[in-house]
C-alpha cells in the first residue's frame, strides 16, 4: 500500500493533527463572521456570561452553527465511506440514497397538510423522512438473489429521488403559502439553526459513529469481496444491514441538521483512502475528523465569498466537490 501515512505513529499523528484543526476550526467558526469576536470574549461568554449581545450571538448562533457543521460533516463523510464500501461504487454518497429528497418531501408534506412549522419540527420530520427513504432504497436495492448490487441500489435511489422531488415540488407549487418557508430546505445550510436541533440529532449520530467504529473491522473483511468474506465465515448480510442502519442514522441526522449537503460524502472518503489506505479502522475516524473539518472550513468560507452576504454552505461544497467528482469518475473508470 503506497499511502501517504504508512506507519502507525504517523497515522496517529495525522489523527491528532486532525483534532487540532477541528478545535481551531470550531474556534474560527465562532470568531469570524459579519462581526468578528475576540478570543477572550468567546471564553468569557462561557465562563462569565453577562447577557451582552456578543455573548448571546456566541451562545445562540455561532456555537450551534459550528457544532452542527462539524457533526454534519463527520456524519456525511463516515456515511459516504460505508456506502462506498457496501455498494462498491466509488461515487456513492448519502445523497444517492435519496435521503435529501425524502427529507424534503416529509417536511413539505408536514408543513402543507399538517401545519408543521418551526425549525425543530422540520428537523424531526427531515430525520424521519431521510431514514424512511434510505431504508426503502436499501430494501429495494437488496431484493433478489444477488442481494445488494451497486447498480440496483443506485437505480432505486435515483428513482425514489425523482419520485419524492416531483411530489414535493407539486405540493409546493400548489400551496403557495408554504413556498418561502420550506424553500431553503432544498439547499444545505448550517446558518440559523439553534442548539435544540443539534441536541435532538446528536445522540443518534453519536451512537451511529461508535457503531461505525465497531463495524470497521468487519468492513475490512467485506472489502475483500462478498465471496471471500462469507468464505471467511462472515455473515455478510448482517454486516451490510448494520452498515445500512448506521448510514441511515448518520445521513438522516445530518439532513435534519443541515439539509442536503452534497459531495462531502464523496470527497472525504477518497482523501482518507489516499492518506491512510483502505483500512476502515483508520478510515472511519479519519473520515469523521476530516469530514467535520471540511464542512467547518466550507462554512467559514461561505461567509466571505460574497461578503457580507452569506452563501449556503451547500454551494461551497458543490464548488469544491464537482471537480473532485470528475476526478474520481475518471479514476474510478480506470481501476
Amino acid at each position, binding site marked *: 500500500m503506497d499511502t501517504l501515512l504508512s506507519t502507525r505513529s504517523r497515522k496517529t499523528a495525522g489523527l491528532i493533527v486532525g483534532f487540532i484543526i477541528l478545535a481551531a476550526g470550531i474556534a474560527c467558526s465562532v470568531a469570524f463572521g459579519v462581526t468578528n469576536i475576540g478570543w477572550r470574549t468567546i471564553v468569557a461568554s462561557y465562563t462569565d456570561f453577562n447577557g451582552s449581545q456578543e455573548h448571546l450571538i456566541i451562545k445562540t448562533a455561532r456555537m450551534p452553527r459550528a457544532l452542527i457543521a462539524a457533526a454534519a460533516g463527520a456524519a456525511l463523510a463516515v456515511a459516504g465511506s460505508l456506502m462506498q464500501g457496501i455498494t462498491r*461504487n466509488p*461515487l456513492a*454518497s448519502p*445523497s*444517492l440514497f435519496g435521503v435529501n429528497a425524502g427529507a424534503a418531501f416529509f417536511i413539505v408534506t408536514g408543513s402543507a397538510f399538517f401545519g408543521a412549522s418551526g425549525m425543530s419540527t422540520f428537523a424531526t420530520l427531515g430525520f424521519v423522512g431521510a431514514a424512511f427513504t434510505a431504508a426503502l432504497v436499501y430494501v*429495494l436495492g437488496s*431484493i*433478489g*438473489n*444477488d442481494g445488494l448490487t*451497486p*447498480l*440496483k441500489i*443506485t*437505480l*432505486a*435511489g*435515483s*428513482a*425514489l*429521488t*425523482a*419520485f419524492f*422531488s*416531483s*411530489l414535493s*415540488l*407539486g405540493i*409546493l*407549487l*400548489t400551496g*403557495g403559502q408554504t*413556498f*418561502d418557508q420550506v*424553500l*431553503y430546505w*432544498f*439547499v444545505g445550510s448550517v446558518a440559523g439553526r439553534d442548539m435544540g436541533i443539534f441536541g435532538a440529532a446528536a445522540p443518534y449520530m453519536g451512537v451511529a459513529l461508535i457503531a461505525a467504529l465497531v463495524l470497521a473491522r468487519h468492513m475490512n473483511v467485506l472489502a475483500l469481496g462478498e465471496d471471500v468474506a462469507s468464505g471467511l465465515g462472515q455473515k455478510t448480510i448482517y454486516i451490510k444491514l448494520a452498515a445500512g442502519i448506521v448510514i441511515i442514522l448518520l445521513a438522516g441526522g445530518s439532513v435534519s441538521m443541515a439539509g*442536503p449537503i*452534497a*459531495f462531502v460524502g464523496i470527497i472525504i472518503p477518497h482523501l482518507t483512502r489516499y492518506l491512510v489506505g483502505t483500512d476502515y479502522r483508520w478510515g472511519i475516524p479519519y473520515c469523521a475528523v476530516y469530514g467535520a473539518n471540511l464542512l467547518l472550513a466550507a462554512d467559514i468560507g461561505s461567509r466571505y465569498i460574497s461578503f457580507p*452576504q452569506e*452563501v*449556503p454552505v*451547500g*454551494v461551497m461544497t*458543490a464548488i469544491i*466537490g*464537482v471537480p473532485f*467528482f*470528475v476526478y474520481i*469518475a*475518471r479514476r*474510478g*473508470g*480506470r481501476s
Partner: protein
Amino acid sequence: MSKLEITIRGRKHSFQISRRTLTVIALLMLANLAAIIVCVGLGSQTIGPLGVIRAIFGAGDPSESMIVMSLRMPRIAIAVLVGAALAVSGALLQGIVRNPLTSPDIIGISGGASLGTVVFILYFSHVSIRFMPVSAIAGAFAAAFLIYLFAYRRGITPLRLVLIGIGMATAITAFTYMLILTASFTPTAVAVKAFTFMTGSIYGVSWERDVATLLPWLVVLMPVALLYARHLNVQELGDDVAASVGSRVQAKRTILLFISVALAGAAVAIGGAINFIGLMAPHIARKLVGPAYGGVIPVSALIGSLVLLLSDLVARVAFIPLDIPAGVFTAAIGAPFFIYLLYRHRNGAS
C-alpha cells in the same frame, strides 16, 4: 412466415414488421385519438365530443373553437410530441446501455436540459423566449457529453455509463437548486417558474412558439431512430457478437446516443423535466410487441403520448382551478411502476 410479417426491402435497408405490431400500433393510434378528444373536451368549460370534432374542422361555434384551437389543442399537441420524444429517447437509451432500468431522466440528461433552462430563466430573461429551447438542448448535450467523456475509456461500457450518469444527475440537480436559491435577486415568482419547469409542466404552450419549435426535431429524429433500430437489435446480443456480425459498435452507439439526447433535450426544452415516461413506455411497448426495436420504437412513442396526455388531463382537471405540473402525475404512476420493474428484474433476468 409471410402470413405474420410484412417485409419492406430497399437497396440498403429492409424492415420486417409483424402483423401483431401493426395491430398494436393501429389500436394505440385509436386510443390516442380518443384520449385527444376527451382531453380537448374536459376542462373548466366542458365541450362535448361532437363539439370538439366540429371545432377542429372549423365548423363549431366561435367561442368553443377559440378554446379548442388556441388553448387546448396546442397543449395536447405538445403532450403528444413530448411524450413520444421522451419515450423514444428512453427506448434508445435502454437499448444502448442494455439496462432496462434507465432513462434520460435517471442518468442526468434531462437534468442537464433543466439546468440549461433554469440558467436561461434566471440570467437571460431579457433575451427572447425563443432561445429557451436552445439553452435546454445545449444543457442536455453538455450533460451527455460530460457523462460520455467521463465514462469513455477505450469505448463505453453500459454499467460505467449508468453509474457515472447517476452521479452526474445528482450533481446537476444540486447545482440547479443552488442556482435557483442563491440567485439573491430571484423573486419567488421566478423561483416558482423554475421549479415548475423542473417538475415538468406543459401549461400555457402555444402553436407558434412551442409546437413549431419541437416538431422539426421530431420530424427529423424519429425516422432516423427507426432507421437505426436495427443496430440496437444487434447490440442487444453483446458487443462481441455485434462486432463479429460486422456492426461498428462504438460508432453506432455514439450516433444512437446522439439521437436519444437530442430527443430528450428537445422534449425537456418544451415540456420541462417530466419523469418516468422514458422509463415506462419502452417497457410497456416490449410487453406488447416483443423486444425487436423496429416495433418497440413506434409503439413506445404512441404509449408515451398516451401516458402524458392522460397525466396532463388529470393534472389539469382534477384540481380546478389549480393547474398542477403533469410531471407530478407521471412520477406518481412511474415510481410504483419502477419498483415493480426492479422487483421483476431482481434476479438479473431481463
